[in-house]
């Protein structure tokens, strides 16, 4: 399983919409999965995904390979990030 943490409007793909709690969905892992594959499997339209993708806490591109038991954080396109 891949543990996916979703933020902002992407929380709707989990059973928790309350931003004060973590919105997590467990996605079955297949060999050679990339971040893009996981996003597709959840059913998130790619245009709703911003550039802030974190695989095990590392800022990562869509093409990066995902391993079983990894943690993936995905922020939406309207939550590009900030300062101070």
């Amino acid at each position, binding site marked *: 399983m891949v543990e996916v943490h979703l933020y902002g409007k992407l929380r709707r793909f989990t059973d928790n919409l309350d*931003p*004060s709690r973590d919105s997590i969905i467990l996605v079955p892992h297949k060999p050679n999965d990339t971040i893009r594959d996981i996003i597709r499997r959840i059913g998130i339209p790619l245009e709703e995904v911003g550039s*802030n993708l974190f695989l095990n806490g590392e*800022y990562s591109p869509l093409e990066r390979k995902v391993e079983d038991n990894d943690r993936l*954080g995905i*922020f939406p396109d309207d939550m590009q990030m900030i*300062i*101070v």
Partner: protein
Amino acid sequence: MSKILRVNMTDLTTKFEDVPEKYRLTGGRGLTSAITCAEVPPTCHPLGPNNKLTFAPGILTATGAPTAGRLSVGGKAPLTGTIKETNAGGMAADKLARLDIKAIIVEGQPKEKGKFWLLKVDKDGAQLMPADEWTGKGLYETYPKLFAKFGKDVGIISIGVAGERLMAMAGVCVNDPEGRPSRYAGRGGMGAVMGSKGLKAIIVDDKGGSGVAIANKDAFNTGRKKLTDALREHAITKPGGTLNTYGTAALVNVINEAGAFPTRNFREGRFEGASKISGETINETCKKRGGVGMTGHRCSPGCIIQCSNVYPKPDGTELVSCQEYESVWSLGADCGIDDLDVTGELIRLCNDYGLDTIEAGVTIGVAMDAGLAKFGDGKKAIELMHEIGKGTPLGHILGNGAEVTARTFGVVRCPTVKGQAMPAYEPRAIKGIGVTYATSTMGADHTSGYTIAPEILGVSGKLDPFTVEKAEVSRNFQYATAFLDTTGHCLFIAFAILDIASGFEGMVEECNGVLGTNWTTDDATRIGGDIVKMERAFNEAAGFTKVDDRLPEFMKYEKLPPHNVVYDVPDAVLDKVHNP
């Protein structure tokens, strides 16, 4: 702006001087640092008679340039012993600029200890008067009284009781558009310098002021439009964009996901309670509780980003403005606290007593590490804050910041550089910000070279946060930032101008319009570089060497979860930042 106001606190006199030619083309940080370098002996005691405190609006303040209402406060800092420029939004910079005042220099020291004065500045001149009736009280009580006495439209620059007591975490407070004591030039203890001068407050009444002259209106308007368009276009700064919707605390979830969110006095890089203090939750709570709650609040005139907020209590009345990233982190995650009502109360107390929220939160985190309270104990954190407000002996220890507190209680895990507490980005997980913390002229300061932007946020190209060759990036950012801090623009325009080239050009063209110069964007970086070099020369003369350009030792041997990394940027890289 054509005048400099010099205030001598030894003989309690004020006089206006013409702006000398050497200062004509600068403002904000460029000006406060130039004056500090020219007039303050680098080895002086920051709280003694030979330090000077300079206030300066930016080159573009009150010109109609967007988001350009910052007030720079400079001098030698008691917290760090270095030169310091710290800036705030709020109402005062705009009003000083409208009075055609380029800087106020406060010098000397009153003979009578513990007595305070108030400086009133208006179109007819400047005047010092006793401030006895305004001292010794919280700023939420004092500000309404000052408005009642001097008129509701004045700007107020002041210190709280922490500054009166010369505590090294005391900030300089500026009122926001609704009159709250909430916008701080917080860092470095400049509030204590103001207190050491016996100056409680500056009241700025701009009625009848002449405004700022603009040398070339066409050039200015072209630049202003380019920058405004960039700010309106960029996802982070546009109306309804990230900053406007969630405030700076939108960063909580991002930096936490990146494993770089310092937790429980920099023991861990991820906080299990992060969601509860996130920008999303702030936004949701403002909506749910209603009442006065709002996001998209502006802290100063002419800001089109509007990243501030007003946070409501459960009944919809006001708790505090503003719950921003650094404050909810320092008083939240860094103390193991995951409750916005608690962080809100702690921020309110910082505003009331006149404290830098970063230094205050990190200090309480260190105190918790020392066992003075348990991590996560909000009630105890509030009690410790009251100790500072009451000025008890423990309050004085805490009020002098994280390093003094760590030394007093034998805490080795002391997250400071040059005596100043680190902000909300873990350098072990984001190497480049560590380079900036180590080598900034100001002590640990994220704003002086925000390498987070390219490392995490995808602004201006992308860098891998874990690589160690960050000297050049940090240097470029430190230079660009020094120029930005000179214009009076808020640092948050950086997202847009780093990504959108015409935005950066626009900022430089605005300056050309106001000053009649012909600067290019390369000139802007060069000017910023000259400012940083001048500041470094001051620090060197004050006794700082490359050995001071280092992160605390514990970060080199304590592994930070979840990445389990230490700070491994070689000293040689750090030394390369300012000696390429």
